[in-house]
């Protein structure tokens, strides 16, 4: 059972949240993408084996959606890495 640090409420147990999954980029403008790109943006996921950015919704408390960096192998939750660009994969 994870403990998740909500920026507003502090360190809270997992049961207060709903996991919204991998932090996909905000919805792109459909007009700016080709059909293939649009289809990919809908269904494809990075599905990182390792550290990734993930969204959680603190539905049973403040109701805010927060982003954490969690390792999908060890489940360790860490501060956002300095370079937010590419999350690392665990070998």
């Amino acid at each position, binding site marked *: 059972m*994870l403990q998740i640090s909500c920026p507003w409420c502090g360190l809270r147990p997992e049961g207060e949240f709903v996991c919204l999954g991998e932090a996909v980029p905000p919805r792109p403008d*459909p007009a700016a993408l080709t059909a293939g790109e649009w289809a990919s943006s809908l269904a494809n996921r990075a599905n990182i084996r390792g550290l990734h950015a993930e969204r959680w919704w603190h*539905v049973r408390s403040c109701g805010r959606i927060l982003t954490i960096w969690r390792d999908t192998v060890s*489940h360790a939750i860490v501060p956002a890495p300095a370079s937010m660009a590419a999350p690392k994969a665990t070998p």
Partner: protein
Amino acid sequence: MTARRLAHGGIIERSRPLSFRFDGMDLSGFAGDTVASALMANDVALVGRSFKLHRPRGFFGAGHEDGVMVSRLSPRAATNQLATVTPLEKDATYVSVSTWPNARHDIGAAAQWFSRLLPAGFYYKTFMLPNWHLFEPFIRGAAGLGRVPDPAWEPVSESRFGDCDVLVVGAGPAGLGAALTAARSGASVMLVDDGEAPGGRLVLDGLDDGGWASRTVAELETLPYVRLLRRATVWGYHEHNLLTVIERRPVDAPDLDLRNWKIRARQVVIAAGAHERPIPFVDGDRPGVMLASAARSFLHRHGVLAGEHAVLFANNDSARGAALDLAGAGAAVTLVDIRPDPGGMAAAALAQSGVTLIAGGCVLRAVGAKRVEAVEMRHADGRLATLPCDLVAVSGGWNPAFHLASQTREAKSVWHHELATFVASHGEGRFRLAGAARGVFEAGACARDGMEAGQAVLRAIGRKAPAIDLPGPDDPFAARSVAPLWFVPPRRRRDKVFVDLSGDVTTADLELALREGYDSIELVKRYTTAGMGVDQGKSGNVNVIGIVGALTGQATELVGTTTFRPPFVPVEFGAIAGARHKARLYPWRHTPLADWHLARGAVMYEAGLRWQRPGFYPLPGEDGAAAAGREARAVRNGVGVYDGTPLGKFQLKGPDVGKLLDLVYISDFGKVAVGRGKYGVMMSDDGLIMDDGVAFRLAEDRWLLHSSTGAADRVHAHLEQIVQVHRPDWQVSVIPVTTQWANATLCGPCARDVLVALKPDFDASRTALPFMGMAEGHLGAIPVRVFRVSWTGELSFELNTPARHAAALWEMVMAAGAPFGITPVGSEANHILRVEAGYISTGHEVDGTADPHDLGLGALVSATKPDFLGKRAMAMRRQRDPVRFELVGLLPSDPERFLPEGAPLTPGGDKVDQEGFVSACVRSVTLDRVIALGLLRAGRSRIGETVHARIRNDIVPLRVVAPVFHDADRARVRS
């Protein structure tokens, strides 16, 4: 030559004798005995039969490293009770498991005659012809340990949360050292120990610590924020320092049998001790052959001497302590130590106690079948000898119990050469290992190690670490260095050397696995089943790894270990479930009108998301269909009222709500006037319908959005993600108000009459309150907000009131409606009404594969909005697959022929891929016949055709019609 109870000693209550039965024998023991110690005290050596070969077995370990199960027939019938940890109960009846008629004379022993045909994995090579099913019942019947009794004891269990600064696993010397250190600093401490009393090895080995342990425990019991759990085992170490503990017969709650803890600890000290392992030799599984530590444990915990003529077989010093203890209790002891150098001081102490030391010797074989009678051995000079005995106590080394550390995935198994075992290596995480769990075996050193671990964890949480007194050195025979001997090779090929007692796995089985190429340690384990039995390899696994290394010429560390998984010890399912059952398992959500519905005799259905709603209100003699038909007719002809409270409702506030609605709905919402509502179909961005509902504009920047009952949570998540993640620039707040508003929905031609009779303080006329209009005010004293929406194809008013007024409103409505014959309506009648009216329903027509055009809602799709969720995907899909499954009405040729919802439509009714399915089928009250809705490939262009449903072997012809059977022009709805 017998095992017996000594006149003194042991932590048992000699003033409380307990009689019991085992396999038909009447015996007696004492309170404080386990089933195992009581049997041993009665010299019952043969207590079970092995899993595959039904070889006679006795007790091998004194705790969870043993595998002998018994069934308790009474009191509180239960099976698979591990005898070495199950407390003896007064007047209890126990039987051995998987034996017939009993352990002493077991018919299954015949398996031993066929043992050559039963090597590891024999079943993979045979039983294929003619069919495995022929042999399987026999195999299944022979497998399994005990039989679940009926009725079975249902332990009373509780599940509880805990939290602390420091959790200490184990109250042996290391655990006590860590706990005292942490507790004296003022930290909150939980000390978890599986013994009846704390002390660990200090008790089990009868070490004299000068009272240190009892002083330490006494102090801990007085310190604030310290909790000691006895008879409790930490079984799981999960992420983020959550640990699960099984507490049996909690000291503080005599009415509880089991308690499962979930403890969040800031830091953990794992002082779980170590498991002794044997040196496997031929027939080393005979009753009377056991671990040296087990013999010691029976002696010190229960005052039971396991045998009068003992042979100890060891490769390390710890057995010497056992030898001295047994000799001191009156046994004649011979210690066979494979190491040639006896060591000066130790040899003297042994000789003084009358222990015969044979240095450089090796036990080759146990003699005796139902009980060990002697061992064959070889002296250092090669001479063979036979030593008569009734007890063989073996010590092949110690395996630190770092399983919990391994469960965290932050510890690696590392080979420790001097101790010839695996230890854990880990970084500076949130736990420390201490004592024997870390490979420190001398008691005084363990206490110091525990203290240092305690200090380290205190530093990690920013507390000052005090000093504590430590016990003096008193443990000259701790296992410091081990001369590994993985097994004593048999001299004859047919001799068996067992490495895993639970699974009857021998060294020959390991050789076979390697020979056949199952050569990584995981494959060896799975092929031979070594380590997969009830002890999960606690005493056998390291030997298996060592043997595999020896047989393959690989260094042991390269062989590696298999994965450690929870639970560390087996845990009762009842404990994990705790008190969760029935209401606590799936709490229902009731509307404020539930009592009224039930009093009226409603049959309640789940409406989605655990809401309970009336399905129908049967009158005496009515079944569901009759009641639903009557209720539906009442609505069509007069007026009905239904409880629509479970519908999802969300209040949306802010200047940008219009933009949000325009994004999530297919229609244009920006232009909806204040005081008006609009029906919205919501798509997910992949172009498939997610939900539908009506949204009303209450004020300039305040709306109320409805969702279907079952999709409320999903819609809530959907809206929040848009507002917080995708369009944080919009000013919108989303407030779920589902449970704040109850509603009673009037429907039927007389609905307005009833509303007027309720004396509203607002104008309820057709012009003032048009279709999709709303009004706010009071009915009598009750505040209401009225929405004019309809799902039934009739004039309809949704009367919303704050939940606390719901019951009063409903009573008022029933009273005002009485002259009009108002009828309470359930969801079954609603289903009839909406199908007749041609309205779609999530879960029926909306099954996640249809888009709005498919369901005939194309006219609602905005022609002007450049973008809304699902717009592009829908267009892309329709372009790729222009032929769609479209909503149609279906009329069976036989007007009384009912179709199951979901019935497939196939070309010609043949058994081929579907061209559609029946989504809803009801007996229409307006047409007095069966009608249906369905999805059909290119359905809209096939109106008038006959299609076919295939229901198993029946082919049912259906005429395709428009998907609406009542009020197609919506005249009633708009009246």
